[in-house]
């Protein structure tokens, strides 16, 4: 698959899909080791939903780029991924930072997805509507944890640390809305850039089985 200048819509799709894939990947690092059993099950569903969203978006991108959802999800070079720095951070085993990311990301994503529901591309708008309906439950989950952790010093610190990253999830024009919803001042965002070393390590693990067989092998 060539990396010729892709259409803005495809770039948008890839950024959104990559965010959901990598966040789902990071969230599934909690499988089996979440703070208690009930939460382990709940958090796993959130991770699965995110990967499900990524899959739907990659399928749409495949129409433009060729291949299929799996080839776009896994067969690109690390530097071709478009995910935001926020989702790349490895936060296990820190639950406070994990929840801080969860709260911030869900708020940012809600803003982004709301805007996408009005996209001229009916299919993308349709997927956005579905994502939004599912993410209602993610937000409820984030809020219930926020209620419990909001006065914990480690949580407060985590939000402080991750706030610039959260802003970087959104395009500049949507950041004021995020600042308003979260109740913080806008600061300099950690912008999307070509992914670096930490991501390359994630990519190596994520694709190690797939790369062990020739491209096109079935699994």
């Amino acid at each position: 698959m060539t990396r010729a200048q892709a259409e803005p819509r495809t770039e948008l799709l890839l950024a959104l899909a990559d965010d959901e894939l990598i966040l789902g990947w990071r969230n599934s690092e909690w499988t089996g080791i979440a703070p208690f059993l009930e939460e382990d099950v709940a958090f796993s569903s959130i991770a699965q939903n995110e990967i499900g969203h990524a899959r739907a978006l990659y399928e749409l991108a495949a129409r433009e780029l060729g291949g299929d959802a799996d080839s776009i999800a896994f067969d690109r070079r690390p530097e071709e991924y478009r995910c935001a720095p926020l989702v790349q951070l490895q936060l296990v085993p820190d639950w406070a930072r994990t929840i801080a990311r969860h709260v911030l990301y869900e708020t940012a994503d809600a803003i982004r997805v709301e805007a996408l529901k009005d996209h001229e591309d009916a299919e993308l708008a349709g997927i956005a509507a579905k994502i939004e309906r599912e993410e209602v439950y993610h937000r409820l989950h984030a809020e219930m944890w926020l209620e419990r952790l909001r006065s914990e010093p480690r949580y407060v610190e985590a939000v402080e640390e991750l706030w610039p990253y959260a802003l970087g999830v959104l395009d500049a024009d949507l950041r004021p809305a995020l600042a308003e919803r979260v109740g913080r001042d806008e600061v300099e965002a950690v912008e999307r850039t070509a992914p670096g070393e930490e991501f390359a390590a994630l990519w190596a693990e994520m694709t190690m089985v797939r790369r062990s067989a020739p491209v096109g092998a079935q699994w």
Partner: protein
Amino acid sequence: MIWEVFRQERKGQPFVHGGSFHAPDQAFADAYAREFYARRQESVALWVVPRDAIHPIEEFPDEFDLKYRRVDGYSIKARLKEARARAGATEPADAEAPAQPASERT
């Protein structure tokens, strides 16, 4: 806190006890109930209640044999036989036919 979940498999079915889990409050309990009893769309409705709200009762007095309130409190065979004999009936009426109210008999 421990919470108990009752689930309805299909509309019209009774709510049946599903199981229990730990959660600190209703918000968590609702989230976990969804996960444990509906993430596969296996329930159409759930009731989520604190265990403390449930009062178990397991003893029921039955001292004076009040079985007139149950079907097994009635044995009509002997009397029915005598009544038919007196009426000279040659064949028993269909035991399954429901009794007609007097107002509807022609």
